[in-house]
């Protein structure tokens, strides 16, 4: 493919994605809108942990903690402190970053899987606080999340709004907020990865000593990336709280952290697109299985004793993590890249089916 035609294809694909994303709320029912929103918030969180784990090689099992900080800080700041909701959201993200910064004596000095174990403390300590600090967190029952209000526009079901004959409730409105936040978060992360910090992060992952010798302050960078990924976690937490309209401690447990790691392995380690693909996959899978459980073999209705959709999804993506690492180290993104290289060659072959096959490059 020539450069020009590649650009055209790329532009067409992106155009289609944007159009689909914009018209979706006019066609999709609430269930899928909500699923889509969960996928968007998961994508934001996954981009964050991919900066840390995929690009810098630092494992974290504590990502769910930072989502919790974001979600609860938003609730607390908007409800109890009375900050305007957009400001509360921004401060909540900053607080998540500060929480990550408070962990930096550990995050800067421990590397790889060591850090992974240490971050378990965030989950278990965090859960302890969430259940016990009732005035702040509402304890076991959690707290209601006030809707976002931006320049007088409320992201809730009321006051009612009808657009092109479609009633625009909370989910439809949040959909666009989610799109904007995700696009911004993705663009920022891409800038970081392609710029000076990204090179330093990748080198720390590939060869820590070389990074230091080339002038990269390794511990400071590790701590810095940890803070950045915490802020992404916090932002994902605010989003998920807005969609869910309630923040409950059980959601922000160990399993959520595992979900995030599964996302980036499945999607592709170290890239923004990989994080987004993995987030969509992991968020959509249980919902698809729930929706079509009666049509699927092996998957039973929830509570009927068989394999529930949530369990089936978990087993599937656990298996996906293992098989992808074994057979397809680049994740789904790597698969897409490979197909893109192979498909034009297949087409070529078809055109030349009478001619001898061109010599393979490998």
């Amino acid at each position: 493919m020539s450069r020009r035609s590649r650009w055209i294809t790329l532009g067409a694909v992106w155009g289609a994605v944007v159009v689909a994303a914009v018209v979706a709320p006019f066609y999709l029912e609430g269930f899928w809108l909500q699923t889509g929103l969960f996928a968007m918030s998961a994508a934001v969180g996954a981009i964050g942990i991919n900066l840390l784990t995929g690009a810098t090689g630092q494992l974290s099992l504590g990502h769910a903690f930072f989502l919790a900080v974001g979600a609860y800080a938003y609730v607390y700041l908007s409800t109890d402190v009375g900050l305007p909701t957009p400001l509360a959201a921004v401060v909540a993200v900053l607080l998540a970053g500060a929480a990550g910064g408070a962990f930096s004596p550990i995050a800067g000095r421990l590397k790889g899987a060591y850090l992974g174990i240490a971050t378990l403390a965030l989950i278990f300590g965090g859960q302890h606080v969430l259940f016990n600090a009732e005035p702040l967190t509402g304890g076991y029952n959690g707290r209601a999340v006030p809707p976002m209000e931006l320049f007088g526009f409320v992201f809730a079901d009321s006051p009612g709004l009808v657009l092109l004959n479609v009633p625009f409730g909370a989910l439809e409105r949040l959909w666009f907020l989610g799109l904007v936040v995700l696009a911004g978060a993705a663009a920022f992360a891409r800038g970081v990865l392609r710029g000076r910090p990204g090179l330093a992060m990748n080198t720390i992952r590939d060869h820590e000593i070389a990074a230091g010798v080339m002038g990269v302050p390794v511990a400071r960078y590790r701590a810095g990336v940890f803070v950045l990924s915490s802020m992404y976690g916090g932002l994902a937490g605010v989003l998920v709280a807005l969609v869910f309209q309630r923040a409950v401690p059980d959601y922000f447990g160990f399993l959520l952290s595992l979900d995030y790691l599964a996302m980036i392995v499945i999607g592709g380690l170290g890239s923004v697109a990989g994080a987004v693909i993995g987030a969509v996959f992991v968020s959509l899978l249980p919902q698809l299985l729930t929706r079509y459980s009666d049509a699927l073999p092996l998957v039973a209705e929830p509570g009927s004793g068989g394999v529930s959709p949530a369990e089936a999804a978990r087993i599937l993506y656990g298996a996906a993590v293992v098989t992808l690492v074994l057979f397809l180290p680049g994740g789904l993104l790597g698969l897409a890249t490979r197909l893109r290289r192979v498909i034009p060659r297949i087409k070529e072959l078809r055109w030349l089916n009478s001619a001898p096959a061109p010599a393979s490059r490998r």
Partner: protein
Amino acid sequence: MIPELVVSDVTVRFAGLVALDSVSFTVRPGSTHALIGPNGAGKSTCFNVLSGVYRATSGSVRFGDAELTASRPHQVAALGVARTFQNIALSPRLTVRDNLMLGRHRLTRSGFVSAGLRLPSARREAARHGARVEEIAEFVGVAGVLPTPVGLLPYGTQKRVELARALCMEPRLLLLDEPVAGMNGEERREMAELIVSVRESLGISILLVEHDMGMVMRIADSVTVLDFGRRIADGVPDEIQRDPEVIRAYLGDIEESAS
């Protein structure tokens, strides 16, 4: 200004094992200095001390006014000390250009915010340093492979990329850890020429660990010989070649020096 590198009485002990035993030598500004010795003599340990990777048990390393033994690797790098590694230490999945751009790390400033937001300052910086990276790649002879991921390149080219990355730091002192190890004769000759031309065109000091005695004797201005962690000789190549103790140290290691 290129300062002197003064290594004095550096001792390194690992759990009872003495890897370096009060070693001293001086690299004069703008000279090519070779550090040689049989395997296990402590050459790599010495390099690791100089670049801040290992902490010396005692002794001092001064580069101009700065004390290197108290510095972390990135602080040593900030003084303009660059090094290459015996076993290639590049990022295999990054392109040659990205690997070289990492060499500009100490000379550039953009952080998470300016890179994330793609501020004009970050873009200008990237463009300016990108141009310099291309010049250096041209000089080292890897300009043709700039967009190629390093992992796909042949070994000899990767060695050159390592040298190019070190040069991208605009060093005042260049530490080369076995730059021609594992290369064939032609590649060795080219690398030796390249090192000579680096010294001539940039005027920087070069400290070199190498097993290829022919090359050392051709390009080094002075030589320090280590054996079992101790310095056994120090002088110009002609003296070293005639030094009885050096000959004795190498006799048990003939294959090594011949290869």
